[in-house]
């Protein structure tokens, strides 16, 4: 029981990180980037590639981060930029459709380049676990949790202490008013989108250390979007606790109904939230 909870919390940290990227774009720009999961998988392949060249997986994070950041910027400029002027509802719908097409492209490109086999990055320390109070704590899971804390505090400092962060928050509250005060909304969108894709680097290495295949992107996106809905749209600080919450729910459901329905539990919660609380349950301060 306690052991499942521990794994649930460690998984939850990963979900939280995936959701951060989605929440940043969704909360600020009302873009729903369905391809986020596929971008994570692409990052995982990049990490695997570098690992085979003898680079430590955790050392690949900065490289993948920069590559995904640039990739995100290119994607925004070429595809998503056109949606800026639409009203919110159309923005969500059309970005979702574009993301869906992008997902199709990325998944099948990945299948073409690296075949459909399931792969994983296996450094020498992948099996190490610690024993505390009779609970097993895997080294990689712990470092994932640590990275998640690092990421959330970085993002917090970025959004609360920098001028650009202030602009991002202003745009997320009211982008017309923000543009009237002289904030370049289009540039803010570009950088937020690129950061959101760049943030996928950490989950992509952590997922790489578990196992991944070209079509796994949508599953990870699902986890992310469930967490975003749990935390409430536009509430970036709620994302991480919501991630842990999902991890714990999943762990409990494994305990109660067996591992086969792990995915279903999260999705049922998700659909119920969408129907009953369209604004999220952990309290949203936005709109």
């Amino acid at each position: 029981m306690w052991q499942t909870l521990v794994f649930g919390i460690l998984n939850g940290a990963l979900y939280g990180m995936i959701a951060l990227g989605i929440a940043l774009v969704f909360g600020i720009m009302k873009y729903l980037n369905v391809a986020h999961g596929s971008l994570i998988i692409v990052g995982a392949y990049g990490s695997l590639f570098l690992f085979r060249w003898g680079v430590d997986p955790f050392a690949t994070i900065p490289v993948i981060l920069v590559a995904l950041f640039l990739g995100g910027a290119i994607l925004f400029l070429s595809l998503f930029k056109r949606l800026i002027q639409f009203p919110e509802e159309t923005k969500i719908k059309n970005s979702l459709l574009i993301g869906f097409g992008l997902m199709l492209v990325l998944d099948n490109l990945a299948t073409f380049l690296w075949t459909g086999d399931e792969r994983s990055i296996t450094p020498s320390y992948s099996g190490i676990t610690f024993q505390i109070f009779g609970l097993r704590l895997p080294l990689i899971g712990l470092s994932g949790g640590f990275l998640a804390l690092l990421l959330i505090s970085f993002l917090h400092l970025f959004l609360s202490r920098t001028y650009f962060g202030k602009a991002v928050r202003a745009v997320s509250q009211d982008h017309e008013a923000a543009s009237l005060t002289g904030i370049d909304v289009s540039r803010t969108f570009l950088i937020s989108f690129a950061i959101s894709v760049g943030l996928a680097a950490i989950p992509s290495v952590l997922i790489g250390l578990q196992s991944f295949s070209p079509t796994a992107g949508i599953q990870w996106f699902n986890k992310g979007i469930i967490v975003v809905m749990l935390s409430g749209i536009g509430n970036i600080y709620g994302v991480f606790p919501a991630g842990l919450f999902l991890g714990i729910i999943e762990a409990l459901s494994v305990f109660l109904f067996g591992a086969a329905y792990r995915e279903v539990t999260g999705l049922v919660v998700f659909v119920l939230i969408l129907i009953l609380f369209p604004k999220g349950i952990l309290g949203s301060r936005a709109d």
Partner: protein
Amino acid sequence: MNVAKKFWIPICVAAISASVPLLTKSEYFINLLVMLFLYVILSQSWNLQGGINGQISLGHSAFFGIGALITRMLWMSKIPILLAIIGGGLSSILLAGVVGIPCLRMKRGYFPIGTLGLAIIAQITVGNILPVPGSLPSEYIVGYSLSSRYYLALFVAILSILVAYFVVRSRTGWALVAIRDDEEAAEAVGIKTFRFKVKALLISSFIAGLGGGVFAYHQVSYYYQSPFELSWSFLPTLTTFIGGLGTILGPILGSVCFLALNELFAFTLGEIHLVIFGFTFIMIVLFFPGGLMSIPHRFESSSAMRRIWGKRSRSIP
């Protein structure tokens, strides 16, 4: 006479389609057409909700799957196939009523993602409960005739097209289009938006369920979860967008393109053909929101062309 004059092209196409099994013995070709009809059924069903009513659903695989599952179950328990298929369609309506109607309460932007969630739930649940492949018993295989599958698929495809045609031309159709274009305005002029959205959902799910029934009748052996796979949700989305959202001919055109590209390139190019398809899809969403159907309008066509393409092709907002 008037009807024959107005609809001679569709009638000719239907007549030619009906005579295909008499003209050719090529099983490959007939199977291909059955797949095409399946795509048309699904796309028309999807278009009723996604194109005409603007409720983009990614949950159609659940309706398709439940139709296939129930039809197969009923048919295996010695119920005549036609009744079994109607049972499949009804079960699909039931599913739509139980889980789909609550989904309509979601904010519109979240509808696709919520229905996607439902589709995944359905797939995993069925995969867990029935992890076995459902093969036909031997007495069914002995009596297997491809042409009866073909005619059933053709019949359901024509039915789906007719339903779409009459819905579009009815008061309901106007209401659905009004809701798509501006829900608040539609509410303001007195359209009961929720009721019409439910109507679109139920009709659409019924056709999808019939499509599932055709699938169950056609396939000799498949995993029970395979008609629940998400690709059955993605496929009608792709074909309808590429063909032309909200038109009758668009989904048919899109299905033909999808199938043709699939057959031509799936073996030579492998996954790359889906990459091309995804890319085309993005380009259409960005630059041609009316799909292939909107292209003739761009080159101001002759009145005859316009008659074939129909006047109802409107671009999405």
